[in-house]
Structure formats: structure tokens, C-alpha cells
């Protein structure tokens, strides 16, 4: 009888040990799974961020959302062949980052893999959900547009645009008092003293700085309010000159859906545009989706 008791007690002790081992093993496996998933999630996140961050370097542009303002810093015209650069960038990502354990795809809105260089420059950056478009006719970036449909125009409170010219000087007064030409002659002129009572009125603050390095020469346009209701538009040709010739930069405001159209005629500039909206509920999309995935998960978001 004693033997039976010993056997039962021993059996119970060992059963306890087995249960303990089982619990420890399960816990370790769970920890391993959680950590592996976390490492994978970090890998996906950082890979997505790295690929996304450098798209702006390829386009030579910086796009930032700051509360209710979209801030876009740009360099025009393009220094590089942007389409070729985009193609190379996509190949570089595929050849260095992509491997059997992680997939990186640029996709359209239907989930089909796309060629980045085939992105349409005319719908390049879109402020959603208002569908306000910051774009160029082509990747040469000689001309800059901001477009908005009349139904979404009321989301724009104001636009501030600062243009630093890098290779030309003002050829007009007041920055050059001795010049016979005026900087600001709107033809046609649909500028307004204020926006009161107007449905499609743009509050637009425009400043140019020339290439003068000794004395900073600025011109802040007097006109601040513009009737942009179709077919109304305001056009000004800013006289500038380089070492050999005089020419103009054409600035058009309106008619909707064109909010602003700036034709630089090959003048090299750095621009800083602030589009103030009447809401903070917006996001700025590039016309492509980046999908980074591993067997553990994926991040699929607009660039």
C-alpha cells in the first residue's frame, strides 16, 4: 500500500512539472511570435517611410501639412530628368530593398503595380478630400498650377506664394526705381479691394525676390483679392532681365478651375507656397500608393 502512495505522489509531482514545462514553453513561443511580429512591423514601417521620404528628393519638392496649411517648397524648373529619375528610383528600390522576405510595390488605386515614371504630372499632388491639385504640365516644371473645382474652392482661405528668382533681376519699378516699366499691371484686371460678398474670391499674397546678392530686392504685389469666377481672370507679366535679355514671368489668377498659373519662361526659382484651408481635416497625396508587405503584415498608404 505504501508503494502505491509513493507512486501516486511521484506521479502527481511529475505531472506538475510537465504542466509547468508546458506553460513555460507556451509562454516562450508566444513571446517569440510577438517579438517576431514586432520586428516585422518595424521593418515594414521603416522601409515604407524610407521609400516614401525619398520620393520628395527625386521630385525635388517638400510637402508638409501644418495644422490647416499645406506648405509646398519647390524648385523650378527641373534640374534633372525627373521621369528618368523616377524610373531609376523604382529600380533602385527593387534591387536593393526588395527581397523574398519583403515586397515593395508602387500601385494605382486599384492595386495594380505601376511604373512611377508614368505618374501624371498634372495630378501629381492632390489635397484630399478637396481635390485641390498642385501640378505641372510636364516634369520639366517650367510652369506651375494650382487647380480647384468651383465646388471645392471655398475650402481655400488664402494662398501665400514666395518666389526666389535665382538667375534674373527685376526690370521694373518699384524695386528698380530707374526702370520705365511697372511691375504690377494687371490685364485683364479682376482684382478686388476685398472679398466681401464674393463667392469665388481668392485671397492671394504674392512676393518675388530677385537674384541680387548684395541688397535683397523684394516685390510684394499690392493686389491681394481676385475674382476667379469663370471666365474672370487677372494676368500680370512681371518684367525681369538676365545678363543678356529682358523678358517676363506670366502670372494668371483664375478663372476656376485654375486658381493660379505661373509661367516662368525658364527662370530658375525656389518657391514656397502656403495654401491655408478652412479645415485641418485634409491630407496631401501623391498620385501613387506604396505597398510594403511581409508574411506578417503590410502597410499600404498613399505616398
Amino acid at each position, binding site marked *: 500500500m505504501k*508503494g502505491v502512495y509513493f*507512486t501516486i505522489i*511521484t*506521479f502527481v509531482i*511529475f505531472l506538475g*512539472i*510537465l504542466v*509547468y*514545462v508546458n506553460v*513555460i*514553453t507556451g*509562454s*516562450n513561443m508566444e*513571446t*517569440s511570435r510577438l*517579438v*517576431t511580429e*514586432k*520586428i516585422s512591423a*518595424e*521593418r515594414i514601417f*521603416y522601409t515604407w*517611410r*524610407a*521609400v516614401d*521620404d*525619398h520620393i520628395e*528628393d*527625386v521630385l*525635388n519638392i517638400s510637402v508638409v501639412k501644418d495644422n490647416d496649411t499645406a506648405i509646398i517648397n519647390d524648385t523650378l524648373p527641373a*534640374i*534633372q530628368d525627373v521621369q*528618368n*529619375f523616377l*524610373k*531609376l*528610383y523604382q*529600380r*533602385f*528600390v527593387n*534591387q*536593393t*530593398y526588395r527581397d523574398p522576405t519583403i515586397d515593395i510595390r508602387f500601385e494605382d488605386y486599384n492595386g495594380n503595380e505601376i511604373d512611377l515614371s508614368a505618374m501624371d504630372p498634372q495630378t501629381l499632388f492632390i489635397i484630399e478630400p478637396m481635390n485641390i491639385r498642385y501640378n505641372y504640365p510636364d516634369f520639366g516644371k517650367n510652369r506651375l498650377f494650382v487647380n480647384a473645382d468651383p465646388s471645392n474652392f471655398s475650402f481655400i482661405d488664402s494662398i501665400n506664394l514666395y518666389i526666389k528668382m535665382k538667375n534674373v533681376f527685376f526690370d521694373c519699378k518699384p524695386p528698380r526705381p530707374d526702370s520705365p516699366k511697372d511691375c504690377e499691371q494687371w490685364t485683364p484686371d479682376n482684382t478686388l479691394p476685398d472679398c466681401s460678398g464674393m463667392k469665388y474670391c481668392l485671397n492671394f499674397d504674392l512676393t518675388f525676390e530677385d537674384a541680387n546678392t548684395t541688397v535683397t530686392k523684394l516685390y510684394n504685389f499690392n493686389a491681394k483679392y481676385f475674382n476667379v469666377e469663370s471666365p474672370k481672370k487677372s494676368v500680370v507679366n512681371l518684367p525681369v532681365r538676365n545678363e543678356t535679355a529682358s523678358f517676363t514671368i506670366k502670372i494668371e489668377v483664375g478663372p476656376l478651375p485654375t486658381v493660379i498659373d505661373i509661367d516662368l519662361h525658364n527662370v530658375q526659382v525656389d518657391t514656397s507656397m502656403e495654401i491655408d484651408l478652412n479645415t485641418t481635416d485634409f491630407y496631401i497625396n501623391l498620385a501613387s500608393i506604396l505597398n510594403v508587405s511581409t508574411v506578417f503584415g503590410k502597410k499600404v498608404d498613399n505616398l
Partner: protein
Amino acid sequence: MTKGFVLTLDAFIAIITAVAISAVIINVIYAGGVSYFDKQQLAAIGYDLLAVLDLSKKFSSYIGMGGSQVEIDLGQQLQLLPQRYCGNITVSIYNGDIGPPVDFTLENSYNNLTDGCTKNQEITKVKRIFVNHDPQKFGFVELELWLR
């Protein structure tokens, strides 16, 4: 008969005991090693370091810089790692041109290792790419991390 049964039962219990104790020891050692958490921590710190250096334009600043100067600077950046971590960083800069035969040709590669470290542990690798617009260059950074 009874004696034989008891001996068989004893032997059976001895085997179970040996297996159970071995399993406990293996599990305790495994849990005590905290290798999962170390690996996660190494990866997290590695990704953070590369992101900070990239976003502060550190990697782009190496374009056109002298090789020894870059390697000295890389050594200084590795000092940002916590004391108990070792790092081996390699920055490769490529020229890009649509092939064939190849799209990218290596222009320069720079490397440095945390002072006083040798690679004798399990290594965690993280990587990041970077791009420079003008001049047009493509960069690839690989960081190997391990515990000191």
C-alpha cells in the same frame, strides 16, 4: 511479478523525470537569454539611428567628401549607439543610369565599426536607402548590430 512491475514503473518515471528536467533547464536557459527582446531592441535602435542620420541629410553629405573623412564621421555616428551595442555600418553610393548592362554602378563605399568591438555574437541587420537630387546619386546603408 510485482517487483518487475515496480521496477518498470520506476524506470518509466525516471525517464519522464529526465525529460521534464531537461525541458525545464532548456526553457529556463532560453528565457534567461532574452534573445528575442535583445534582437527586437537591436533592430529598433538600428532603424532609428539610420532614419535620424538619413533625415538629417548626413548620408547625402558624404557625396563628394573624402573617404577617410567619411569613415571618421561614421565612427562618430556609431558612438550614438548605447554602450552595450556594437555596430558595423557600410554606406554605398551609386551612380544611376538606365541599363543595360546595369542600372547602378558603385561610386564609393565607406565602412566603420564601433571601437573595441569584434563580431562574435548573433548579428541583427537593418538597412535604408537614400537619394540625392543634385548631383543625382543613390545610396544604400547597411548597419549590423550585436551585443558587446
